[in-house]
């Protein structure tokens, strides 16, 4: 019998059967992959495992013992630790406090602040995570926050650790740290459940694999090595996807977007570049390289120190998102939770929030038109939902991302599209569809800026790549010269310090 057993787990939400009758087992010391399209039920399964949600039916066995926990605390005592898809940190507390939250050490409820920090510092050093334990989490970058989240799981001696898309906001370097950690845990016999949409990672890390589809078990592979990418994709999506990037040559026109000496408080060195009609310009860099900051400055989301942004020869002014949108530029932000989704509102409203001004005479809505736009993008982006009226908060992470994309793709008269991490958390099937949409838009003359931390993605879809490092442009590479090694080298900070650029 396997160490961790799921027995006919079912879980429904109003209008959605998130899991039906899922059973599989994982051996001790194995890393087990969990794959599936957005909304397939991966996070739900993990939430059931973590004691956060209870299954409608079915049971979980660890080491042959049926688990009857009803809260996260019980699960923790049973040795189960989960890192959720959305970051679960308290920004107002320090790193050390976050790591100990829920199980603070101390006598009679009194915390010894110093030991708290020192023990955390020691553990972080040991596992190789470079974060100050006394720093408030609110002062950390997203990447650093993700590392803190991961440290949370690794610091405690758990029997089962589940990681829900841990690398979606990590750079390759930080991902490497995580992979090393997973290797160490494996040797200790810990069971690791690993959710990811990145096939590379699955093949590299996982021993066994389960594929979910529409809440059901689509496939179970006791040995990952014995399957192929194509097979897994087919099991997930139900069809074959041969070339996920699908890039093809496009004619490029006049410069459409021109950016001159742009700088702000988080991006001190001024940046200049331009994008031509029909061009897809990729921005690559490590996390914290300043790409998102550049995009926000470009869009007027943050205060600009200097610089100008011109679209088709017209200067965008004043410096705020509304003006940018009227001038034909839109930004799809990287952080869907804080900058993207509008909680409590329906999918339809989340899609139409910006574009509805085109079909709302005198500010009065036309519900029919709004509905049809929403339906169009729900279908086009394969958003898994029972209805367009569903509250966006009830969607799976990837589906939320798709809705936010839909918001910007449904805009009319867009001349410049800036997308920050467009496929973060999105399944393989939908990815290729999104790329297709980008090519179509580019072919129609749009200038597109894509920011991504996934090198294969930037290389796969861009006509040109600008590499950023520590707030500066480190390289500007044409498609003909794309080369993984040189792009990565340009992105690494150490070399910049040596002044080789």
């Amino acid at each position, binding site marked *: 019998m396997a160490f961790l057993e799921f027995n006919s787990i079912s879980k429904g939400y*109003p209008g959605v059967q998130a899991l039906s009758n899922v059973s599989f087992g994982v051996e001790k010391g194995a890393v087990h992959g969990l794959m599936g399209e957005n909304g397939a039920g991966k996070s739900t399964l993990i939430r059931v495992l973590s004691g956060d949600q209870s299954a409608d039916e079915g049971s979980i066995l660890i080491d042959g013992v049926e688990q009857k926990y009803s809260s996260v605390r019980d699960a923790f005592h049973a040795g189960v630790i989960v890192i959720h898809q959305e970051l679960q940190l308290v920004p107002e507390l320090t790193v050390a406090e976050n790591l100990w939250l829920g199980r603070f050490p101390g006598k009679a409820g009194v915390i010894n602040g110093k030991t708290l920090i020192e023990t955390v510092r020691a553990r972080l050093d040991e596992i190789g995570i470079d974060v100050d334990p006394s720093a408030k989490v609110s002062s950390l970058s997203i990447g650093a926050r993700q590392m803190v989240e991961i440290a949370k799981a690794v610091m405690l001696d758990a029997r089962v650790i589940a990681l829900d898309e841990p690398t979606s906001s990590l750079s390759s370097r930080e991902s490497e740290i995580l992979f090393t950690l997973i290797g160490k845990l494996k040797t200790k016999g810990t069971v690791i459940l690993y959710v990811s949409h990145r096939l590379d990672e699955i093949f590299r890390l996982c021993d066994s694999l389960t594929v979910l589809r529409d809440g059901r078990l689509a496939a179970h592979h006791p040995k990952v090595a014995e399957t192929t990418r194509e097979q897994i994709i087919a099991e997930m999506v139900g069809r074959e996807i041969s070339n996920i990037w699908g890039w093809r040559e496009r004619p490029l026109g006049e410069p459409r977007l021109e950016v001159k000496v742009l700088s702000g408080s988080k991006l001190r060195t001024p940046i200049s570049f331009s994008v031509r009609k029909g061009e897809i310009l990729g921005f690559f860099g490590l996390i914290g390289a300043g790409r998102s900051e550049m995009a926000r400055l470009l869009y007027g989301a943050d205060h600009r120190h200097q610089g100008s942004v011109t679209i088709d020869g017209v200067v965008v002014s004043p410096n705020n998102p509304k003006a940018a949108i009227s001038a034909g530029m839109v930004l799809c932000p990287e952080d869907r939770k804080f900058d993207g989704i509008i909680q409590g*509102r329906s999918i339809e*409203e989340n899609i139409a929030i*910006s574009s509805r001004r085109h079909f709302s005479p005198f500010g009065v*809505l036309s519900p029919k038109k709004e509905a049809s736009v929403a339906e169009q993008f729900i279908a086009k982006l394969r958003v898994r939902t029972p209805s367009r009226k569903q*509250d966006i908060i009830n969607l799976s992470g990837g589906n939320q991302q798709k809705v936010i994309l839909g918001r910007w793709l449904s805009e009319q008269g867009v001349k410049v599209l800036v997308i920050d991490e467009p496929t973060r958390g999105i399944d393989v099937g939908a990815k290729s569809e999104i790329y297709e949409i980008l090519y179509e838009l580019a072919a129609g003359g749009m200038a597109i800026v894509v920011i991504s931390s996934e090198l294969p993605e930037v290389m796969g879809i861009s006509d040109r790549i600008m590499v950023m490092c520590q707030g500066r442009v480190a390289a500007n590479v044409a498609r003909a010269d794309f080369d993984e090694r040189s792009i990565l080298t340009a992105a690494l900070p150490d070399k910049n310090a040596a002044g080789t650029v």
Partner: protein
Amino acid sequence: MNALKKILLGEQGLVVIFAIAFVIVSLTVPSFLTERNMLGLLQSVVTIGIVACTMMFCLASRDFDLSVGSTVAFSGMIAVMVSNSIGSIPLGLLAALICGSIVGVVNGVVIARFRINALITTLATMQIVRGLALIASDGRAVGINDPAFYQLALSRFLTVPTPIWIMILLFIVFGFVLNRTVFGKNTLAIGGNPEASRLAGVNVVNMRIWIFALQGLVCAIAGILLASRITSGQPNAATGLELSVISACVLGGVSLAGGRAAMTGVIVGVLIMGIAENVMNLLNIQAFYQYVVRGLILLIAVLLDNMRSSAAGRGSRA
């Protein structure tokens, strides 16, 4: 059975619960369901009802306004004092509307532009505006010189007094604005996630200022009607109005965390508050017990609504 469940748990569940309660009260409380009492009841909720229209927007966009009571009193005073001194009622009303809006704009600018906490800001303006009303009138009510002013409240159309019509009109207008206009949807979006809304091109600062300005304007309307009904401008009028209005809104399902609001809910909330008061007086319930009963009604109403909505599984992840 299932159909009943569907109705009770649906969007309009609160309305249905309310309707049932209404029928029960009508059958059991003598002289409740008479035309006279109904009109009296409606008149008694005119101020709360009118102000709730815009408070709904304020709460839906995650703001908060404690200054409404003072603004109602202040603009009522202004209407009477200006009418008296200039001798023109229309100019008096205009002055009141302008003053109300100014209070609103000041609130809005301080809150949205200078980014000061709405609770503190409106707590401050609540006191400042009340102080101004007291200073202007030396703490005493100001009588209305021209009896034509009373007609605002006394006149009737189809046997229903004008203030009730105005309240109904505002319910319709603001219901429409909330559900059917970009303004309404943007309000809800700001409440759901202000930063995301800003990035989606909503001018959040301006929207918030507009909402407060509207709130001030609507308070002035309520203040004018109140002055006309009580035939004087009273600097102490409408104290504590803010809590009643906010309760009515929350009772009607408006979320203090923003992003959730519905006009029907608010209307029901307002009516529940009014009916509770009305019925307690009809039943001659002792003053001290009225406190307890009022509190219990509030609790039961939200409990019921909560049972309903959690049975419907809504907001489980919120």
